[in-house]
């Protein structure tokens, strides 16, 4: 079943923006995080439900919360059912790739007869309702998150340093027409940076200079011409990371967006460059 706020049910279904119930809420907050070793994906959900009569049906075993978690790319679909309003479940990370949708419902697990609630809109014309097994008492808007091992890597993984013989000295260029953003450097500069970036201090400098500039420019490229660039892997990862961080890359300040995606790069300078006795390996 897909969530559709406009679908007409012959019985009241508690949903956002629909007045089957004159007052009342069923809202779900969903968080999906990767375990530290990236082997598990953990889903945590908290349900806010204000209708006591529905809570009673759940408590008595006639209904349950059902979170449908689905991923088209891997053909995964599962229903997490619970009587509790706080749910947590771990999944093997290999089950998901790309867009993962979590759709919250409250569903009848046994036939429910003579369901009454004073908050039900009187326009139904009757005061009592029946629900058959499988029919929904409440539905919330789906939540969507992107899951990919690439997304758990630093955003800098979409960058690639390459030698460009036509460049001299320390000039550098960006190219966006490949699956990774190419940071083109002269052979001399490339060798220099390859040697230097093994040090955390030097890497902090690189992140705050080359990488930061590249990510800002990438955001501008997407804004100017999303159609041209959207199919490249770097663009997909960037857009998906923005989505997962609730950033609208089309409107949000590009400099601020880059800082969030690079996880506050200035703090690395503080830690490895400015600090007295900073790591000098």
């Amino acid at each position, binding site marked *: 079943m897909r969530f559709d706020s406009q679908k007409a049910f012959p019985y009241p279904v508690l949903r956002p923006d629909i007045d089957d119930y004159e007052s009342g809420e069923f809202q779900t907050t969903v968080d999906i995080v990767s375990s530290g070793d990236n082997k598990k994906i953990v889903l945590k959900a908290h349900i806010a439900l204000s209708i006591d009569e529905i809570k009673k049906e759940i408590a008595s075993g006639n209904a349950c919360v059902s979170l449908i978690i689905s991923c088209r*790319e891997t053909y995964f679909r599962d229903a997490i059912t619970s009587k509790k309003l706080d749910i947590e479940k771990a999944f093997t990370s290999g089950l998901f790739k790309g867009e993962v949708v979590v759709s919250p419902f409250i569903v009848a697990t046994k036939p429910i007869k003579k369901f009454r609630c004073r908050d039900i809109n009187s326009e139904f014309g009757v005061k009592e309702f029946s629900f058959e097994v499988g029919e929904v008492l409440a539905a919330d808007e789906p939540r969507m998150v992107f899951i990919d091992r690439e997304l758990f890597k630093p955003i800098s993984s979409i960058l690639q340093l390459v030698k460009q013989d036509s460049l001299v000295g320390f000039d550098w260029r960006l190219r966006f027409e490949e699956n990774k953003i190419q940071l083109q450097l002269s052979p001399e500069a490339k060798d220099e940076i390859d040697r230097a970036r093994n040090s955390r201090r030097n890497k902090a400098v690189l992140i705050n200079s080359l990488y930061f500039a590249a990510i800002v420019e990438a955001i501008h490229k997407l804004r100017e011409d999303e159609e041209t660039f959207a199919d490249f892997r770097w663009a997909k990862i960037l857009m998906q990371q923005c989505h997962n961080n609730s950033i609208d890359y089309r409107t949000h300040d590009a400099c601020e967006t880059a800082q969030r995606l690079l996880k506050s790069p200035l703090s690395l300078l503080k830690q490895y460059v400015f600090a007295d006795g900073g790591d000098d390996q």
Partner: protein
Amino acid sequence: MKLRFIKERALDELRRGIRDNLSLYRGGDFGHLTLDPSLNFESDIEVDEKVLSKLKAPTGEDLFDTDNCTLMVKALSDLSPYEAADERLWVMLSHTLMLDHARLRWPIPKSDDAAIKHIQSHFFASTQRQLERDNVASRLWWMGHLCQRVQGLSLKQSLDILLHRSDVRANIVERPTTAQSIPVFTALLHKLAKSYNGNQKLFERKAFRTLMVKLNGVGGYKLLDALDSKSVEKFIVEIITQDLKMKEQEI
């Protein structure tokens, strides 16, 4: 042996170079993809080459898809859906370990233009549909993977049923919600199993499409995912008797 994935750049070049490589597709080989470390990377996934070598070539009208799906799932028993959704893996297999099988199962047309379209379809997998239906290697694994999830039927039974009619397969697999939902997929296969061993009436195009339309209608108002497959089977039986006007024993 560990599975190798073709690198992204090499994949892009291979896709662009189909016309130039036609002679390789017809009768040469792509051994350089395996030998040149700049073109591939090794994964942690084991592939049983011996099992893969047993893939059967078509004989007459017999395509041996059930046998080959079973072999593919066995050869790649370590593979996760995450990795199986990666085109780079399947392109590598299609061009190397499964190249001979690909030529026999999907013979390359004589016309160059037709050959290019054919190769794009069966040797690459850039879209979801290609992964599921067209690529010589990935389609076998995905069919096997979907059928492995069915409880109460062996893999062979599930595959025989799913692959018995192309319209049935397409209507189930290409309606992703149906194939994704284990209770619905299981319930459908169990009823199709009964029909397969009986009069096979459910496999008739009109009957099956009506069943799918009605089942989708039920799914619009009942959360079938939250039910077990036995409960979903009851809905299917209702559709068979009330909408298809058949007795369950007749299917």
